[in-house]
């Protein structure tokens, strides 16, 4: 795997890993009475394992100068496998906490296994572990193909993937120990946040260096979305995580902002994590894999320009719709609502651009579960962006906020859109990357598709029902003018829906396990001596006369 590194890169990676091991050691010593020390030990162990991995390949033959005739896909392969590990873990924990709401005794009197600590393991596991790795892995694949050039070096992509997963592991293990900033979707503490900035800068630099080497005068639309994902996530991450640690040997920090400013910053971040992590990046994925798989060009170039800049501009105003009727000044709430409604225009422009791309290929959608994953993803993207704009309207939000409706909405987007487009893209890439004709079992792809769709629909319907019932019960008055239901009454009414939701989640998880097995078997059956296809090479015949 690491034999693709040149001798210099092998040396440099050893230096970096040795330095990180030292940092881990210092953390372990300084924080020996604190979870900080545990994290130091984890950093050390992981870096030492990585050092062994590099040394194992240290005397392997170096890649020659002819490597530039080939795309560099080893990191993408690694990223896809890691993403699949994260999705199984993340979905498992998600379903576990779903069952905890059915039966709260599934905590087993252990702090680490309680709902409040496991929930961020689920959210970070699926969003950052699965989604993030899938985005990074596919972005490496897509940027090389659409620029018709190889990445400039071999070390940077490995640094990005290694560093990113180190961040994810620190995050998830931290939650189990109760290490959290409590900012939703930005829970990791200050030291993990700083490390992520380092990794992210390396990712950005790698992307820009690859773009600079492109043999294609125009930058393809998928790259705009990946670029927006990288840049804006960096902005959001840095501003929202500003904090003062209590010491350099403790995990704990205090947010720089407080109260209303902190709330606005958090939801500016939170909503745009949805926008630029869960939407922009995955649109990049869709803009490459869907047309390639369907064998059709993107329906409209102009529509993609409008939707790209519309999404980039409008989304950033929408965060305050998470704070309707709160202590946030009303003018900010109104702005958030207005822009959320306007956001429907670029969102539906994207969704319809995707679906219209399939015109002329609908017979493929019928026969090919991989393409069907992508089609259903585009449909759910359209549905959940409509729902999002609707829920951002203040009077609708007064009912939906704080209820399971929000949870249902998030999962319509996360399961229906993000996971489906990712599974579709992964099923498309795996045979290309490992040089097999098809997946190990196209039938299992079909099985996964129906499990995922059924799971999503059960989940979302259960949460719509419970959310709306909850919201209505909270505001119902009886004839004497007092509140008709106690809070506990509404909780009891949720029980059947919580069971249904956990079953929907279980189906989706089962699908994820099936996918993991299928991908694993495809890798095993891949013949190592398979001949190269044109997909591996920047096609020389088409090079412009530069």
């Amino acid at each position, binding site marked *: 795997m690491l034999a693709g590194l040149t001798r210099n890169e092998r040396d440099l990676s050893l230096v970096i890993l040795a330095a990180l091991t030292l940092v881990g050691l210092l953390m372990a010593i300084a924080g020996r009475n604190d979870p900080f020390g545990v994290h130091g030990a984890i950093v050390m162990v992981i870096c030492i394992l990585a050092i062994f991995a590099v040394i194992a390949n240290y005397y392997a033959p170096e890649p020659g100068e002819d490597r530039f005739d080939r795309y560099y896909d080893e990191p993408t392969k690694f990223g896809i496998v890691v993403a699949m590990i994260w999705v199984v873990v993340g979905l498992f924990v998600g379903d576990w906490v779903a069952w905890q709401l059915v039966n709260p005794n599934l905590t087993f009197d252990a702090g680490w296994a309680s709902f409040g600590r496991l929930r961020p393991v689920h959210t970070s596991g699926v969003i950052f572990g699965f989604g993030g790795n899938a985005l990074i892995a596919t972005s490496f694949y897509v940027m090389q193909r659409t620029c018709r050039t190889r990445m400039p070096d071999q070390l940077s992509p490995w640094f990005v993937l290694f560093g990113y997963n180190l961040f994810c592991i620190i995050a998830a293990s931290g939650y189990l120990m109760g290490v959290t900033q409590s900012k939703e979707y930005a829970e990791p503490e200050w030291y993990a946040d700083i490390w992520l900035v380092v990794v992210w800068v390396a990712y950005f630099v790698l992307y820009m260096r690859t773009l600079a080497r492109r043999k294609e005068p125009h930058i393809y639309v998928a790259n705009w979305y990946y670029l927006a994902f990288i840049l804006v996530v960096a902005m959001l991450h840095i501003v929202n995580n500003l904090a003062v640690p209590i010491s350099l040997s403790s995990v704990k920090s205090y947010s720089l902002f407080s*109260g209303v400013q902190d709330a606005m910053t958090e939801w500016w971040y939170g909503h745009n994590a949805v926008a630029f992590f869960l939407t922009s990046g995955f649109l990049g994925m869709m803009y490459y894999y869907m047309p390639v798989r369907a064998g059709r060009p993107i329906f409209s170039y102009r529509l993609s320009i409008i939707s790209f800049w519309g999404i980039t501009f409008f989304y950033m105003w929408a965060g305050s719709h998470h704070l309707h009727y709160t202590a946030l000044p009303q003018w900010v709430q109104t702005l958030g609502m207005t822009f959320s409604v306007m956001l429907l225009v670029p969102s539906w422009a994207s969704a319809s651009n995707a679906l219209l791309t399939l015109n002329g290929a609908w017979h493929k959608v019928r026969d090919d579960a991989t393409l069907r994953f992508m089609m259903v993803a585009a449909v759910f993207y359209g549905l959940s962006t409509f729902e999002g704009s609707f829920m951002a309207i203040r009077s609708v939000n007064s009912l939906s906020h704080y209820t399971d409706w929000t949870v249902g909405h998030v999962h319509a987007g996360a399961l229906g859109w993000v996971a489906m487009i990712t599974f579709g893209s992964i099923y498309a890439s795996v045979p290309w990357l490992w040089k097999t004709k098809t997946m190990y079992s196209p039938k299992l792809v079909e099985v996964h598709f129906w499990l995922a769709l059924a799971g999503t629909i059960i989940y979302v319907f259960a949460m719509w029902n419970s959310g709306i019932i909850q919201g209505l019960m909270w505001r119902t008055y009886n004839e004497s003018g007092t509140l008709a239901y106690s809070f506990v009454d509404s909780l009891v009414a949720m029980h059947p829906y919580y069971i249904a939701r956990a079953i929907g989640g279980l189906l989706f998880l089962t699908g994820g396990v099936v996918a993991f097995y299928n991908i694993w078997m495809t890798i095993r059956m891949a013949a190592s001596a398979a001949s190269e296809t044109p997909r591996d090479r920047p096609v020389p015949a088409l090079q412009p006369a530069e």
Partner: protein
Amino acid sequence: MMTPFGFHYRLERKAIGLVLGIILVASIGGIVEIAPLFTIHQTVEDAPDMRVYTPLELAGRNIYIREGCYACHSQMIRTLRDEVERYGPYSLAVESKYDHPMLWGSKRTGPDLARLGGKYSDEWHVAHLLNPRDVVPESVMPAYAWLARTPLKIDDLGNHLAAMRKVGVPYTDDMIANAKDDAYGQAKPDTPFAEGVTKRYGDATNVRAFGGGTTVTEMDALVAYLQILGRLTDAAHKTAKAGE
């Protein structure tokens, strides 16, 4: 004249151009909505009577954060009739002025806690945290029995207060220097350390054996925090009265 699409046709040939364009376009929303919140005086009301969290309450708040309580409980009563009748006066911005970070929450799997302080006895809270189903049979909240078994870490509370002061909370040198003793004293009313707590944080401060155990545990801290929710200032009640 160049059409917008013609302009874009040129822009997308320049990586740096795209990068700058994205940064510019994406910055506007946040700048317009967030920056004024720090300067406009109306954002946060005045509340001269507002006090800071005691070290024990702050430690309890950190346990609330650590256990992810905010995932199921909000601390933000909206300006809606049913919420005000169910939970109490709607939340004011000033009430979370010293909350680094805020814990407004986004989901009510359990009820809002913004006005929880003083609503139930310490004994109720302890019983509820040990096993919620003993007092609310239908509850789906996890049991937090281990809090009563875990001694509270108090030796670094001075560092916590000092960090809070760096982000703008008016802790005095006296408070920071005595953080550890005050945390102990607030849960141990019969010890000489108890006196300093009311001296530094006001006579209205709860000084009680919250968790009821022999040592100071995490249960003491969490219950102390839950009992102060909504009671750092009277501003919300005053606003509600004035509006009647």
